[in-house]
Each structure stands twice: as C-alpha cells, then as structure tokens.
C-alpha cells in the first residue's frame, strides 16, 4: 500500500512517500494513522494531533472512519491552505 505525505507531515516524517504493509487489524484511515504513529519518533511527531490530519484515498478526501481496503494510494496532510 502506497502512502504519501505532504507539507509538515512530510517534513516531520522525513519522506514524501513509502510503501507500507500494515497488519490486517488496521482497517480504517484512523487505524492507519495510529499504526503509522507507532513506527518511530518522526511518525509520532507527524501524527501527534490526529484530529488535524487530513486524508485522501486515491485523490479524494476521506474521513478517518473510511475503510482502506482496496486503496491504491493513501495521502496524509495538514489542513489545506491554497487559494
């Protein structure tokens, strides 16, 4: 499963993308955030306030309760500040 990071999530983790293999009990976007946060200090820092983290599956915004099964690309990023 490909995971991509943007803005300060990317900076804190120190990489823009990676492929991860979470265990079967990681079923939702929220589960994945929790699992990623346990992967080390940089991840814990990036995901220290889960409620501000936004997620997208295959280029569409999704809420944390969304199932990740079948996702090709999951993105995590801070609130958007475009425009």
């Amino acid at each position: 499963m490909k995971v991509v990071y943007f803005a300060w999530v990317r900076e804190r983790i120190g990489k823009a993308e990676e492929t991860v293999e979470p265990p079967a009990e990681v079923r939702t976007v929220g589960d994945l955030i929790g699992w990623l946060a346990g992967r080390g200090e940089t991840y814990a820092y990036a995901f220290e306030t889960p409620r501000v983290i936004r997620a997208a599956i295959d280029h569409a915004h999704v809420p944390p309760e969304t199932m990740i099964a079948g996702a090709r690309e999951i993105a995590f990023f801070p609130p958007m500040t475009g425009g």
Partner: protein
Amino acid sequence: MTIPVTIRLQEADFDTAREVAAMSAGRTDVGAVVSFSGVCRGGADGDAIDALTLEHYPGMAEAEISRHVEEALTRWPLFGVTVIHRYGRIVPGENIVLVVTASSHRQAAFEAAEFLMDYLKTRAPFWKREESAAGTNWVDAAAHDDAAAARWTKS
C-alpha cells in the same frame, strides 16, 4: 453548446489580464465576467515575508479543482470558467490563483467565483510555506475560510 473550461496548475506566473480578456473575446452571449486574482502579499512591517512556497498534491489537485468546477457548472448558468493555480516559489506581488467566471447574469458570475475560491482555499490540496527573516513556517488554515466554504453546503 460546450462550456469552455480551462484548468491549469503551473509553476510559471500567468497574465490575469489576458485570461480575463479571453473569457469574453468574440462572444455576444456573455453579459457578466467576474475575475478573482489572489496575489502574494508582502506582509505588514512586523512580519514581512520574502516569498511563499506552494506545495501541492499532483493528480489530486487537478481532480479536486475539476470536481468543483463541475459542481459550479451544475449550480449556476455559466458560459465559461477558468481556474489557474500556481505552485512552487512565489514572491510578493506575483499571482497565486485566478478564477474567472462568465454568465449572462452578474449574480451567477459572482456567486460561482466566490464558491470556487472558497473551495480552493479549504479543499484543494495546496499548502503554503512562508519565508521571512525569522525563517520558514507553514501557514495555518484560517477558521474564517472554513466558515466561508460551509455556506455552500447543500442542506
């Protein structure tokens, strides 16, 4: 009739004037053209900024903007829509974003442009980082932008 829609994500600056002129050139059905240009500000004395860097999520940014343009086309009787959003490093005085809408009626053109800007501010996957004498920092999302976007939610 196909409604002309232009969506561009680009690193280079763009010419607002040319885009506005293109919207109504040679047409006699367009009664109202509204444009919004978002320009990089230098900031006030205390927190003058040297530049913005806009990061974006390629692929998703195009998809999100397209979805919102499609929604605008279903909500308002538009004759044309242009959305241009830059990414990369932008210095004060340069353009960041442009929305141009054309309709036969001014209210539709105004509302569609505001709708698109509110959504670009809150939903399009772009992130601004400011460079100043104090270093660089990511711009926080503004609560008033979320409130502005919320007015368009169908109830």
